[in-house]
């Protein structure tokens, strides 16, 4: 079982905090990989919030492919960040190639275009680069979006963190999602590693999704180019949230109603029962049966946690106004926020959808039964 570690705060925090929390949950993952996605960046990126940042890994040839393509699309490099790679003796983390975190300036003709067109361009570019570099694993592109960085590598999370030099030169962000990977039934493949990101939506998941194939087939057939990949059965959660919130325009808590719909008799108790019943039927291919604990963030920076409705994976939220941790296990929260009042910790149950708005001032628990 994987372990999840997310921190949302009003101030910038080091990525290493989330990784240290993962380390306390070490018994729960086999250390076969680490993935982190950071949103609302600080440090060197604080002044670059409007510029899309490409995150990925490339071989020399992959880097050439990337540079040639970006040049051909008239993207220009605004800022290039490189991790301070530290290959610790005894560490099992091996350098794969160039770890890319590059902020680009939009092509000139796009700079005044509406946000929607810019977003479509970024997605198109990421997918084109992924397609160009996927063969022989020359180039991985995990995200290409303003104010977002994603890094992934195989190995023990703490060792990977040290490998990236985060202990001495950390990345800073207001929202950090980190996942310690338990390599179970799939070969280690970086595109299969959480967190998954699409157009400002990001999720990471603990557990397996038994409804993966119907979920995937439904998303694939929506005609939206970003719904692709699916090297992991958890990637559908990110895309489902994107679909219902971005494509359909539903408020985010309906994600819970889509993945774990209420029984019809319960639905009629909700004020919007009629609409909900139709929604349940029309989106039944996105329903899941768990076991899954899902943690993610939205384009506006709102962080959420929710569970499947039957089996439930471990998940806990604790913190103080200004900083909250959303973790698989309590020891992870203890690591990040030892001084908090534990009585206020929240363990989301089957009907709960928990959100923390940007600024991390309070935790809201939305109950599906009550609506």
């Amino acid at each position, binding site marked *: *079982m994987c372990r999840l570690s997310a921190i949302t705060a009003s101030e910038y925090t080091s990525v290493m905090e989330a990784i240290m929390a993962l380390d306390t949950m070490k018994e729960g993952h086999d250390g076969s990989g680490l993935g982190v996605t950071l949103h609302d960046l600080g440090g060197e990126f604080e002044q670059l919030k409007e510029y899309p940042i490409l995150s990925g890994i490339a071989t020399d040839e992959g880097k050439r492919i990337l540079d040639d393509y970006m040049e051909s699309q008239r993207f220009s490099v605004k800022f290039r960040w490189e991790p301070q790679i530290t290959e610790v003796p005894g560490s099992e983390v091996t350098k794969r190639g160039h770890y890319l975190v590059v902020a680009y300036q939009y092509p000139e003709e796009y700079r005044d275009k509406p946000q929607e067109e810019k977003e479509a361009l970024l997605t198109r570019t990421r997918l084109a680069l992924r397609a160009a570099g996927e063969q022989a694993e020359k180039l991985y592109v995990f995200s290409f979006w303003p104010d977002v960085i994603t890094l992934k590598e195989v190995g023990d999370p703490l060792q990977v963190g040290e490998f990236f030099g985060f202990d001495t030169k950390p990345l800073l962000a207001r929202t950090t999602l980190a996942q310690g990977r338990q390599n*179970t*039934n799939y070969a280690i493949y970086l595109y299969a590693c959480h967190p998954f990101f699409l157009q400002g939506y990001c999720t990471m998941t603990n*557990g*397996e*999704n*038994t*409804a*993966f*194939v*119907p979920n995937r*087939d*439904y998303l*694939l*057939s*929506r*005609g939206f180019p970003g719904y692709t990949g699916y090297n992991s059965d958890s990637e559908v959660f990110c895309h489902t949230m994107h679909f219902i919130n971005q*494509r*359909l*325009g*539903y*408020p985010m*808590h*309906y994600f819970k109603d889509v993945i*774990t*719909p209420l*029984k*019809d008799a319960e639905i009629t108790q909700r*004020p*919007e029962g*009629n*609409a*909900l019943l*139709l*929604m349940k*039927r*029309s*989106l*039944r*291919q996105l*329903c*899941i*049966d*768990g*076991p899954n604990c899902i943690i993610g963030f939205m384009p506006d920076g709102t962080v959420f946690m929710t569970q499947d*409705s*039957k*089996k439930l994976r471990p998940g806990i939220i604790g913190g103080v106004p200004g900083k909250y941790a959303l973790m698989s296990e309590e020891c992870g929260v203890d690591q990040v926020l030892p001084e908090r009042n534990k009585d206020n910790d929240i363990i989301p149950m089957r009907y709960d959808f928990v959100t923390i708005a940007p600024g991390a001032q309070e935790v809201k628990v939305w109950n599906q039964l009550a*609506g």
Partner: protein
Amino acid sequence: MESAGRLDHNSELTLLEFPYIIHWREDRCTRCGKCTAVCPTKAIEPSAMVQRIVHSDGATPLPATIRRVSHVIRQVRDIDRHCVGCGTCSLVCPNMAIVPEYNPNHKFLFHKNRGGVPYKRGGRRNDPATSTIDKLKFTRISMLTDPALDAGRHEFHIRTLMGRIPQAESLQMRVDGNRLHLADDAFIPPVREIFPIRIGGMSIGALSPPMWEGLAMGVAYLNEVENIPVVMCSGEGGLPPRLLKSRYLKYFIPQIASGYFGWDEIIHALPEMIEDPAAIEIKYGQGAKPGDGGLLMAYKVLKLIAKIRGVPMYVDLASPPTHQTKYSIEEAVAKMIQSVSMAWGFRVPVYPKISGTKTALAVLNNLARNPYAAALTIDGEDGATGAAYNVSMDKMGHPIASNLRDCYLELVKQGKQNELPLFAAGGVGKEGHLAANAAALIMLGASGVDIGKYIMQAAADCFGDEKNRCNLCNLGKCPRGITTQDPRLYRRLDADHVAERVVDVFKTAEVELKKIFAPLGRSTQLPIGMSDALAVSDPAIAERLKISYVC
């Protein structure tokens, strides 16, 4: 002196040409005559035989040969009175003295065309080989990484939707505050939530009164008492007038077929209906006899049947192979769906049923573009019928598995897999694995399945099988009383017993479906299209159905 021709009997058939050979034991037979009385084809008859026996009387053995005439049961060697292997003789025999045995070397079809009349029968395709759907196994078992559900403890929702389900993108929703609301004037197509196994179309007329009544009672009981929403299709031939006006109509799917039998009565009953039917099925084809129309023989058209169908008594009721008033798919499908929908104020799902065919995709694409089409039922080659030419049943038609799969994957390609439910029929439960066959078809993409032959076998002990056993449905001589209008035969069948067995079947199927879905980790929604759960040990089937190959 007799001629050589007479001596060698060369113009006659030997018993070895016959599909079933009667094994009669003289030592057990009491000559009660029950077997010859019940034989539906008169394949056995009392006869006399000269026997040579060695006999000894007295205190010490003194064997002597004597000849005597004895009464025997003899199998007739007339091809038109062939033993069908039904076994009714053995059922009534008080001493277990008689039983028919299948003869795998028979040459029945070489001879069953006397007078230039092709062989006609009921039943399903005579192919006892394991069908594709029975070869599929469920191999994605949840183990440790995703714990299985507990069929006994967790709540399972084994239901499906019948009706056009609007695409999420087209739902007329507005966001008010933080809540979704449905636009006031939004048209919502009628959708029924039902059990994913339906009873397929078998008409009153084809079925005897106690059989049809038993099915109907069973269905009503399942809905009202067991809370298992099973629906049943009427077949072509209407519904009893009292049922049309009763609250039970909601459990039935009246079928409209090319003969329109019964529809005058149905339409006239519309103002008095207090419930809408579950759906309306427009039958364009039948898997057992694709391209063939229906036929109810004159001797089955008794008073009740004539009344329900709105026809004179004792006339052959032939339904044409196609709907004669329609000349194109747009006519046949779109206009009919719309006009039937209109009759019920667009409150009832209306869908077509076609036989499995290579052209199913063309029909599907037409339906996908028709917003009033509520579903599509595809009936595969292993479906059964009450009467058809043997050649149609054995050699015409398309297996259901690949036909269904192609249609589902086409819908996936169009993003309409949730919009237009597919129902699969034809051979479901052929080897008795009802729940497993239904689950396999659901995972290939069906929203539900239809059964016909299976329920006759399970609920009324129909003798028929894929070795041409019995299959007399077309002659009105059903020895079980299932497919006959002869009161002497159908009084053998107890409607209450049929209803009880219908309830048994569906309750069992629900439990077995749970036992299949639980280890796959699914319980909230039917795992429609969850093809990763399926596998087969035949690489060609795996490739064709796009599922995994295992060995």
